């Protein structure tokens, strides 16, 4: 297992380097001058020239890239053009927020999606299956931002149950933190729950028709034991893959959700950075996201092996 993980980590290094080159170049292709975005209204020529010099934007692209990657290797991702804060500080500030949001959203997705998937597979063709499918389909089709605004209007403005937006760090006030994150996590989680439900359902359907399940039933095992112990465990392997992939979707979805609920997380940081052409921040975030993504994939591969020890040989 350790050898496997070590091997995967080694492969990850060139992948990350490749991503960093790609992001760096792609960003330079964006129209719009970062210095102009930075100067805003007061865009007189001397200021622009000074800023260009200060942020080394006159250097050739490869020089800019090597400077950046060299500093990044030493843990320095540069400073934000907009606020002069180090990018690492910004990331350290925002990452826990988005992780909290992602974990809570995954929680909603899993507790809704997986049981609904099992149930609708088990009760295939009945009204339960239909209802679960309709709910899942709506979850997939309703846009996050619309659901978000509707939830704010209903839950915060009309009912006054939860704060409309904002963020409280978990370490400061756990209860308030959970309260502020509840709605955004739910909104973000519903879309994922629908995907999860569809995947669990089809995986379960496949497994429930397999020979070993029939054997288990023939042995006279209780239905509960057949479904949960025998069928679900195998059906979970593709579901774990989906959950890992969903993590990426979560980060993408978090962009919109964080915007609507004014959560100072990764998503909001990257959107603002792109619009302000805050190159250092965009690069830093993409690099971190890429690393997180790769780690998640390694984790899911490791999980397969836990769920299905037979895969260890492969």
């Amino acid at each position, binding site marked *: 297992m350790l050898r496997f993980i070590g091997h995967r980590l080694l492969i990850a290094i060139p992948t990350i380097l490749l991503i960093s080159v790609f992001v760096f170049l792609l960003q330079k292709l964006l129209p719009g*001058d970062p210095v102009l975005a930075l100067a*805003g209204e007061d865009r007189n020529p001397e200021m622009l020239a000074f800023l260009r010099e200060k942020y080394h934007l006159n250097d050739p692209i490869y020089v800019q890239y090597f400077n950046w990657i060299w500093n990044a290797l030493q843990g320095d991702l540069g400073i934000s053009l907009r*606020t002069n804060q180090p990018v690492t500080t910004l990331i350290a500030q925002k990452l826990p927020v988005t992780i909290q949001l992602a974990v809570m959203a995954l929680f909603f997705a899993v507790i809704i999606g997986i049981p609904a998937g099992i149930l609708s597979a088990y009760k295939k063709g009945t009204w339960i299956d239909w209802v679960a499918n309709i709910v899942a389909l709506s979850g997939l089709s309703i846009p996050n931002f619309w659901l978000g605004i509707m939830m704010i209007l209903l839950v915060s403005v009309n009912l006054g149950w939860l704060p409309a937006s904002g963020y409280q760090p978990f370490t400061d006030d756990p209860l308030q933190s959970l309260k502020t994150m509840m709605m955004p996590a739910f909104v973000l989680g519903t879309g994922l729950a629908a995907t999860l439900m569809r995947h669990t359902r089809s995986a379960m359907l496949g497994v429930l028709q397999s020979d070993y399940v029939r054997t288990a039933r023939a042995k006279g095992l209780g239905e509960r034991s057949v479904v949960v112990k025998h069928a679900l465990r195998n059906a979970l392997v593709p579901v774990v893959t989906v959950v890992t992939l969903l993590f990426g979707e979560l980060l993408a979805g978090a962009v919109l959700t964080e915007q609507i609920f004014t959560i100072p997380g990764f998503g*909001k940081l990257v959107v603002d950075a792109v619009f302000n052409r805050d190159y250092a921040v965009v690069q830093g975030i993409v690099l971190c996201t890429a690393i997180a993504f790769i780690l998640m994939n390694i984790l899911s591969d490791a999980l397969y092996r836990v769920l299905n020890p037979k895969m260890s040989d492969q």
Partner: protein
Amino acid sequence: MKKPTVLTLSAMLMLTAAPLFAADLKIGLAEDPDILDPDQSRTFVGRIVYASLCDKLVDITPDLEIIPMLATEWSWSEDNLTLTMKLRDDVTFQDGTPFDAEAVAYNINRSQTLEESRRKSEVASITGTNVVDPTTIEISVAQPDATLMAQFADRAGMMVSPTAAEAAGVDFGNAPVCAGPYSFTERVQQDRIVLTKFAEYYNADAYSFDTVTFLPIVDTTVRLANLRAGDVDMIERLAATDVASVSADDGLTMEQATSLGYQGLTVNVANGDKAQNPFGQDKLVRQALSLSIDREAVNQVVFEGAFAAGNQPWPPTSPWYNKDLPIPARDIEAAKAKLAEAGVESPTVEIQVSTDPVAQQVTQVIQAMAAEAGITVNVVAKEFATQLSQQTAGDYEISQIGWSGRVDPDGNIHQFVTCEGGINDAKYCNLEVDQLLNDARATNDTAARKALYDQATAILDEDLPLIYVYHQNWIWAMDAGVTGFAAYPDGMIRLAGVSKAE
């Protein structure tokens, strides 16, 4: 035993009857401010935070008159080359450093010499300072500069603590120390900025909140929802389309002021090859486009009448407005006649606009109006940073863009239309206009300045390198319990006299 009980009860009743003043005021901002250093910052919302954090040498009234703040009185020398200012003697910075003439000299020097300073052009005319005594400073200028006092009424006049600025250098904005009624406590990027009341402030009694929290909430609908849910007490820049619903809500109140800025069309008249089109080359064609626009209708259709129609660099409510040039009525026949005179009956032009849906709506309305005069407008939406860079590079025909406005009229016109103007993206150049606008900078006589600006706007109204269309209104919405707020055309939130009943 009966008597004390009654007494206690009545005391409790009195307590509940008396208005309880809340300790914290929460303000929803439309954006997250940039760096909180008056010398380095550039955002509008940053200035809203400064209004509570950093006092200025002078302030303005809602009618744009300059009034004392840290400076109690001032006068210009006979030749208009020396400004003498008397300062308050009871002011300390929030770190205990005394405020005096030395501090003013330090601040002016910092605005001029800090490498990252964004104030350089605003105080460029200053050649030196002379500390006469702790409460008197003389400021000398290279040539008469009528705009200087207005600069001191904004960021260039904000005094930062020399001790703190010296210690923090370019990172001063991470923990700013000024001489305002509230001091900086904490900031979480994109989340909140918290200020705490500064007890030693010279006019502390006028400020009733212990803390002020600024929360950037970008989406207008969500900002309003937060106000309705009671999560913030006040929001700035309410959407014009929400004005009706807020007016109908008993729990909320609203204040408005027409901004100092303008919104309109900048025409590329000489900025590279793209200027080679009928609109760039012939003022008659530009006049035709202007005549085809019903400015009041734009205001009604897009902003439900909440903004103000306009045709000059400053709004009709401004004391600088040229009354001889009222907002032109829409005249399709006249527009067609102008086109016929120019020999182009059905010209086509591309207007670039930012991706902001409201800005696009304005352009679409203009597109429909121009079509009736035979002008084909192609609307191209561009993300703002792209729009700006193409505009600077001259890669546009017409760009729909605005300006947030300055207290002194010079700030709304000089840099846009003078031949060497820093933001003259139209590359308009008319030596007569240059002369008038330079002369208007050089005299402190308001009536003489007004006459010069009137002459300049008359020429610009003929040449039309910029077609002004409307002026935004600053609209604040607040909880009905918040009282004492006064609307200013600079869009700032001044908290003196503002209180909140629970």
